[in-house]
């Protein structure tokens, strides 16, 4: 299946060996979208790399740029002012909602439910509007900066946010009606693509896919950054490790993110939103963050120049992708889409 196939959501290939309709073995092939990110970043200045990291995964650009900025801040010893930290949390969660809605929009057609595509994209548009309001762009916002964020929030931003979230909470019930309350949706996802907690950890599965196996591992809680330690939230965890659990975790995360945004808006302090950062840096640093899809890690080495000496990116789906054969074996061909769709593949970040 692939590289041109409706299942792939990007450009990658899945070789499956079938016995009739049953999958005997599967092997993902990646690399069709390799752009040499880590090399390009070595020849650009620290600050200019934010533009690149935005494009690692266009569905979730802020979270990626933010991970890079965090690593650079650690390298340069920059302290982000509180307002900047809170604005980051708000936009990160807005981006997480937009990303999860994009996943939902892709997951519906995978299962044959095209209506979900239109519905999820309809609500995603509202969150993209919010991101546009604060950063000026719908996608590839180029918004986090080393030392804070690019600009302050516009006036009345919190009111717009609250209005959208209130509207979105109502629409969540609509999604529940068409998805989890539908017997046919449960038939397609419950017990499909199951992976045990131990296997998931061994293979480096992270993020919502790991939390769906019953592990309460959320870097926002375990290894907090920015303003996350000051905001209370409960990471979503499901137990079964199947496609349905992954779906449930993501839907719960949508609600968690809404809560997070509202609490962050409540606490949003006044003051500067960006600290000045040095141009040059020496040493090495890494930071990991909870991306929309799992654990994103940036490892940056500086040699005293204004460009990084070396950048290493760890993308969550890169690892998860190779745990997918474990989930697929023994299932039917039609389950490939139900499994790969629930993993939320983003090829941009896999191939880097």
């Amino acid at each position, binding site marked *: 299946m692939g590289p041109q196939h*409706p299942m792939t959501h990007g450009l990658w290939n899945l070789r499956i060996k079938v016995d009739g*309709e049953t999958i005997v073995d599967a092997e993902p092939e990646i690399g069709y979208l390799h752009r040499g990110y880590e090399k390009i970043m070595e020849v650009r200045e620290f600050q200019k790399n934010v533009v690149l990291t935005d494009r690692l995964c266009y569905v979730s650009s802020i979270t990626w740029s933010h991970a890079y900025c965090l690593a650079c801040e650690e390298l340069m010893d920059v302290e982000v002012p509180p307002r900047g930290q809170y604005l980051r949390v708000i936009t990160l969660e807005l981006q997480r909602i937009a990303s999860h809605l994009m996943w939902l929009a892709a997951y519906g057609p995978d299962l*044959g439910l095209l209506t979900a595509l239109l519905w999820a994209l309809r609500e995603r548009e509202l969150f993209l509007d919010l991101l546009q309001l604060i950063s000026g762009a719908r996608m590839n916002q180029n918004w986090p900066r080393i030392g804070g964020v690019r600009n302050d929030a516009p006036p009345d931003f919190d009111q717009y946010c609250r209005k959208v979230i209130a509207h979105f909470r109502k629409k969540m019930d609509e999604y529940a009606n068409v998805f989890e309350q539908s017997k046919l949706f449960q038939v397609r996802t419950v017990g499909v693509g199951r992976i045990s907690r131990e296997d998931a950890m061994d293979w480096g599965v992270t993020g919502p896919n790991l939390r769906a196996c019953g592990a309460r591992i959320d870097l926002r809680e375990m290894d907090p950054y920015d303003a996350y330690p000051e905001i209370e939230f409960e990471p979503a965890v499901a137990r079964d490790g199947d496609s349905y659990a992954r779906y449930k975790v993501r839907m719960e995360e949508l609600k968690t993110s809404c809560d997070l945004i509202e609490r962050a808006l409540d606490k949003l302090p006044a003051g500067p939103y960006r600290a000045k950062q040095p141009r040059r840096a020496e040493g090495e640093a890494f930071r990991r963050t909870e991306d929309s899809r799992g654990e994103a890690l940036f490892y940056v080495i500086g040699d005293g120049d204004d460009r990084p000496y070396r950048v290493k990116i760890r993308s969550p789906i890169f690892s998860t992708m190779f745990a997918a054969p474990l989930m697929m074996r023994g299932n039917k061909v039609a389950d*490939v*889409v139900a499994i790969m769709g629930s993993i939320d593949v983003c090829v941009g970040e896999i191939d880097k």
Partner: protein
Amino acid sequence: MSGHLIDLLGWSEVLAGFVLWLLSLPFRLVSWIVNSIGSTPRNPLDDFVGWLTGPDLTAFVAVIVAVNLVLLWATAFHLLIIMWIERKMYSRLQDRRGIMIGLGSFDILRRTLGRIPLIGRPFRRPSHLGTGFLQTVADGVKLFQKEVITPATADKWMFHAAPVMIASSTLLLFVAIPWSDGFWIMGSPGADGPVNPYGILVILAAFGVAPLGILIAGWASNNKYTLLGGMRAAAQLMSYEIPLVLSIIAVVFLSRSLDPFAIVRDQSRLLAIGGVTVPFLPNWYVFHPVLWIAFIVFFITIIAEAERIPFDIPEAEAELVEGWTTEYSGMRFGIVFGFKWLRALAGAALIVILFFGGWDGPVFTTVYVPNIATLGVGTVPVPILFQEFWFTVKVYIVFIVFVWIAWSVPRVRIDQILNIGWRTLVPLSVLAILLAALARGVNWL
């Protein structure tokens, strides 16, 4: 009961007579010349002309004309309308307006006809504020323009035969399904309406041909997706034929006939349960205390027979890239795809005949208009809400329910489909048969 507007065979006979009369004109001319020149006692051409315009050939040609009229009725009328209904309907479910192309979308029409003061109004609309009906026509034209590709590795004869098989069996369905007391081809006039003793069986047989065509199409394309799709189609359609037929048997216990006309006639009286007549409620089988089980089974199996979501796994576009239709292009794709819609419509028509009273409707109005044939002497009754109207309305309502279901549920997996078929639908249909037999045995209904 109301009258029917269309007398299909009668009209085709008139049409056939006219066509044959036109054909006989040159022979008549020659025969007239020959007759006026010499005085042969018996001109063979006269015999030929007599045969050409005689009742035997006219009746034969009338059937051909009627079949072609039904073809036109199915493709030029229903296919365009149901495509439009489906697209508008699911767009609304998805919170959007759907196709909006109208007459105003034609720039040339806007610039010419649109300038006319009153009549030009629909042409002056902005380009995408129409009803969208022209989109289906445009899609057809587009498909005609596309290249018809045959894959190099395909089994050519089989590959070409499959769409023909699918299309012709679908048209056979439309020939076999009566649309009213007058709009039918299969059957013969009887004492109280037309008679077609095995009509339902013929319709079911026509339904059974399509899986073979799909299997051939999937195999002959020589592509992994089409092969999987064809196999899925075969497994699914063949296992759903059984509950389909079984649930009809339950109906036959009450109707005591396989004749669609008799079934509809039986449903047009008032519902009576245990000898007590229920006021205002017609004897539609869906209202029967025992037959609604058969209705549910039949409804689900018809959705599966029409390969609609949630049972559209033969062409599951997410994993099989349109399954068995993958390799077809151009109008051949249009045929296999469009006739799937027609099969869904035929299935809806069958549901209406069996469970919703066919062309029996609650309100009938008849007006008397001067008879044109006798130049205004006397009047003829013309039904305003005629049988064809009621039947079409019901069929489209059932079809809209199909669309509604299709766009609000995900697709089921192949093994789950077979499980539903064998473990749920077959026992349910047997239960329906037992209940219907019991009700008939104690003469309760």
